[in-house]
Structures are given as structure tokens and as C-alpha cells.
């Protein structure tokens, strides 16, 4: 019964996403929806390390930057096809995450958060100052779209790109669900609950933490690559700390340690600032306030609140 309800929910959500471009009349909202889907991928990754493993990493946007710059630079310098560099971008990001994760996962809790925050700063500074490679603050423009510019797969068409990112977001969400339900996922959840016991039952916790960290980075790298080819322009500004905090908030607001949480959370962090435009220059303050209130009153995110409501409704129906 419960299983059927969630399956219907997934199907309805998927149908909603498929129909969304037809329902949106304002072009700008379609643009935001593409960005939100990119953020769904990044947030699903963040959820693996933050939501399931319980390690708050503050470098997700930095890893998106590595993905975005590596797909762009591989295209420029090696003249590789776009679809290939999009696939290679998460692999490059994984290498950086392996190097960064191996030492930083030795520390726990807040210390881990601070070490990853430092990584994001380093990535940002390198992107800013390695101007020969990255063109610094000015950024790189004219990043090509995947596919052909004629006919069916004209990725310059926003709607086409929307469906392209949607397919990838669905695949990556499905992959996250598979990971979470597997023995690996169970071990990650166990680490979140009692890391000492994980070692005592014979599991090398560090391998699993590193897996989650690298997997999260690969999600970010992929999201960053999709972002670069969508916007056709990147500069370091969009891969800073503030965006890493957005990834964290997407997980918290949507529902930490749930599969649908990052999907909802990604749309909230992309759309909410836009809806707060009426507040003009107070927009960011209001945004911050809403987020603080949400974290206090919805500790389990939107998924948690909806779950509770659903339980109350069905509970009443039963009695």
C-alpha cells in the first residue's frame, strides 16, 4: 500500500517534469528550470555525502567548477567532442576528489566541513588566478553545445536542453536510489549513525566515506559540465562558497537523506531567490531568514513535512 503510494508519487513527479516546458509560458522560467535540473544532479551528490553519510561537505560548487572548466578546456585544447568531454568531466573531478578526500576524511564533523570549505576556496582562487588557462575573472565564453545545430537535437533550443538535462537528472537520481538501497548505502547510513561501530563490525569506514565523497564530486562534476554547455559561459564567480552553501541548503530544505529531497530542494534554491525579487535589495536578507526558519521548523525538510502530513491523512482515513 505504502509502496504503491510512493510509486504513484514518483510517476506523477516524472510526468510533471515531462510536461513542465509545455506549461511554462514565461521563457525565463524555463531557463530557471534547466538550472534547477542541473542543481538536482549536484544536490543528489551532496545528499550522498551530507544526507546519507552525515559528513557536511562545503565544496560541491567547487567540484562543479572543476567539471565545468574541465569539459570546456578539454574541448578547447584537445578538440574533443562535447558529449565526450561531458562524460570525462566527472572523471576528472573524481581525481581531484580522491586527492582531496583521502586526507580530509581523517577528520570528523566540523573539522571535515572546514577542510572542504578550504578546498572550495583553493579551487576558486586557482580558477581566478590561473589566467593562462581559465582567463580568470573574465571567464570563458562561446562554450559549444552538444549535438548538431540543425534538426532534432538542436541543443541551443532551451526546451531540447531541458529534456536533455531531465533525462540525465532522472538517471542520476535513479543511480542515487540504487546506491542508497545497496550494501554501500546501508554502510553510509550506518556511518552517519555510529561510525565507531562500523569499524568494530569489520568495515573499513574510510573506504565508504571516500566512495561517498568521490561519488558526490562526480555528480557535481557532471552538473558543472552540463551547466557550462548550457550557459556557454563560465567564470569562477558561480563556483564559489555561496553556491556550495546552496547545495547544502538544497539538501536540508528538500529533505536530508531522502531521494526526493534534493529534487525539491534544488528547485527551491533556484526559484526562491527569484520570487523574492519584490523585496528588492532586502531580497538576500529575506532569503536567508526564510532558510533559517525552514531549518529550524522543518528539520527533516519538505519531504519530512509532507511525509508527516501524509501519515496524518492516511491515519485519519484508517480510523
Amino acid at each position, binding site marked *: 500500500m505504502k509502496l504503491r503510494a510512493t510509486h504513484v508519487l514518483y510517476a506523477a513527479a516524472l510526468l510533471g517534469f515531462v510536461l513542465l516546458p509545455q506549461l511554462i509560458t514565461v521563457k525565463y522560467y524555463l531557463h530557471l528550470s534547466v538550472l534547477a535540473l542541473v542543481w538536482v544532479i549536484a544536490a543528489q551528490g551532496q545528499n550522498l555525502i551530507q544526507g546519507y553519510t552525515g559528513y557536511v561537505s562545503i565544496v560541491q560548487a567547487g567540484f562543479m567548477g572543476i567539471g565545468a572548466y574541465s569539459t570546456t578546456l578539454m574541448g578547447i585544447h584537445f578538440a574533443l567532442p562535447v558529449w565526450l568531454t561531458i562524460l570525462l568531466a566527472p572523471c576528472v573531478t573524481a581525481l581531484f576528489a580522491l586527492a582531496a578526500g583521502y586526507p580530509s576524511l581523517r577528520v570528523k564533523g566540523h573539522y571535515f566541513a572546514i577542510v572542504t570549505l578550504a578546498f572550495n576556496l583553493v579551487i576558486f582562487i586557482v580558477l581566478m588566478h590561473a589566467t593562462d588557462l581559465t582567463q580568470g575573472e573574465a571567464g570563458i565564453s562561446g562554450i559549444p553545445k552538444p549535438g548538431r545545430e540543425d534538426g532534432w537535437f538542436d541543443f541551443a533550443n532551451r526546451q531540447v536542453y531541458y529534456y536533455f538535462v531531465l533525462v540525465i537528472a532522472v538517471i542520476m537520481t535513479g543511480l542515487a536510489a540504487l546506491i542508497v538501497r545497496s550494501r554501500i548505502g546501508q554502510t553510509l547510513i550506518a556511518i552517519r549513525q555510529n561510525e565507531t561501530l562500523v569499524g*568494530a563490525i569489520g568495515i573499513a569506514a574510510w573506504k565508504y566515506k571516500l566512495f561517498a565523497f568521490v561519488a558526490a564530486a562526480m555528480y557535481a562534476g557532471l552538473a558543472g559540465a552540463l551547466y557550462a554547455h548550457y550557459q556557454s559561459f563560465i567564470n569562477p564567480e558561480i563556483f564559489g562558497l555561496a553556491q556550495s552553501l546552496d547545495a547544502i541548503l538544497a539538501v536540508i530544505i528538500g529533505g536530508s537523506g531522502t531521494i526526493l529531497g534534493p529534487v525539491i530542494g534544488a528547485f527551491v534554491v533556484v526559484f526562491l531567490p527569484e520570487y523574492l525579487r519584490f523585496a528588492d535589495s532586502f531580497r538576500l536578507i529575506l532569503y536567508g531568514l526564510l532558510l533559517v526558519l525552514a531549518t529550524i521548523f522543518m528539520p527533516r525538510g519538505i519531504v519530512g513535512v509532507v511525509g508527516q502530513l501524509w501519515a496524518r491523512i492516511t491515519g485519519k482515513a484508517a480510523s
Partner: protein
Amino acid sequence: MTDRVLEVNDLCKSFGGVQAIRDLSFGVAPGEVMGLIGPNGSGKSTTVNALAGVFPATSGQIMLGGAPVQDMSEHARVAMGLARTFQTASNFAEFTVREQVMLGGAVTLKAHPLASVFGLGHHAREEDALRARVQDILDLTGLAPVAEQTVGTISSAQQRFLMIATALAAAPKILLLDEPAAGLVSHERKMLADTIKAIRDLGTAVLVIEHHMALIMEVCDRIVVLNFGSKIAEGTPSEIRNDRAVIDAYLGEAV
């Protein structure tokens, strides 16, 4: 001597200037229940933690099934056949009882963890076998009725049995029980004694650290007595009960 599952030779552990264990040697045979007793501060917990690899021993040798493990990490020793429980209940509060015991058995699975992501055949068969073994363990430890309950909702006595069940799932050659009777009332202690005997009957050696003398005397084949980090006696329960040094240091006259 090599037929012993656990062999400890001249084990020493110092914390700064304090020598918590000095030159401790003993062995445990397969299917044997060994007791480790002594007054507070005599080094029992330090011994358990050094054996389990929570911290490295200062010197000495620890052999599991004939292989030296003193330089191995805690989790590697579990794979070598040593599983343990903790003095205070340590579980995965959000899992169901069955989920936790299943994870306790993960160390016995040979398929790569990544195979479980895509539900590949080999892994699925292995996991089915583990599932059957976990059911047996739940029956043995009396946890079958609460198998689907969340760990955080079961009683504290059940939490203690759950630690034993989780350790057993690792299919250990030797099981270290660190004060398993702490907080148990008399009928639960009886259940614990029966469980320890049942584990022994399956051929698993057990090392029990315990203050509850009646339990120790009932279940142990042999007992090692520690005082100030040194072994002051070793023998059968009746030998220990009548040992002058043990009576002076720990048991007292009335026992």
C-alpha cells in the same frame, strides 16, 4: 599451541607512564569459554581494546587462528575472526534489528560492494545465504520477535543481545563480550548464560569480561584473573574460587 583461536603472548600496554597491562599471556581454544576477571582498573577493558585493535599494543603478540594480528587495524581483525561487543550499548539506532545484524554479516560477503548496487547475481545469492544465517542468529539471541522493530525502540536488555547478534553475524572464531551482563536483571542474565553456552556449542570461542561472578562461574571453562595489569591466576572456576591470591585481590572470603 597453534590449535588455539586466540593466543596472547607478553602483551603490554602503557598510557604515558601508566602500565595498564604487563606481560599478559593466555590462549583460548575453539569452543572454549574463557573468563577475564579482576577488580576495577585491573586492565580488563584495556585488554579487550588492545585485542580488538581499538589502540595498538605497546608490545607483545596477538595471534588469531595462528596469524599475528597485533599490527592490523580494528576492522581487519574482524575479518580475521575476532568480533566484539561493548560495555555500554552501541548500536545503529535508526536501523531495524534485522538490518543491523545483516550489516554485521557484511564482512563475510565476498562479492564486491559495488555488485550490490546493481543487484548482480553472485551478490544476491550470497546475501540470501546471509539472510538465512541472520534469521538463525536472531532466533538464538531471542531477537526474532523484534526483528522488524527500529533499534531505538527495543529494550536496553534487547540492545545488549543485539550487540551479541551483530558480532555473531561476522561469523567470528572468537567473540569478545565486554561486560555483557551490565544492566541485566536475573532472568535476562539466565538468558545470557544460555546464549553464551549456545554460542560455545556452535564451536565459537568466547572471551567474557564480567563482574557478575555467578555468571562467570556458570559459563566459563577457564578463567584468567588480572590485578594491576598482570595475570595473577588462571584455571578452572573451582581452582580460581579457591586461589589464595584471587581471594585476597578480588573475590573476598565469602565467595
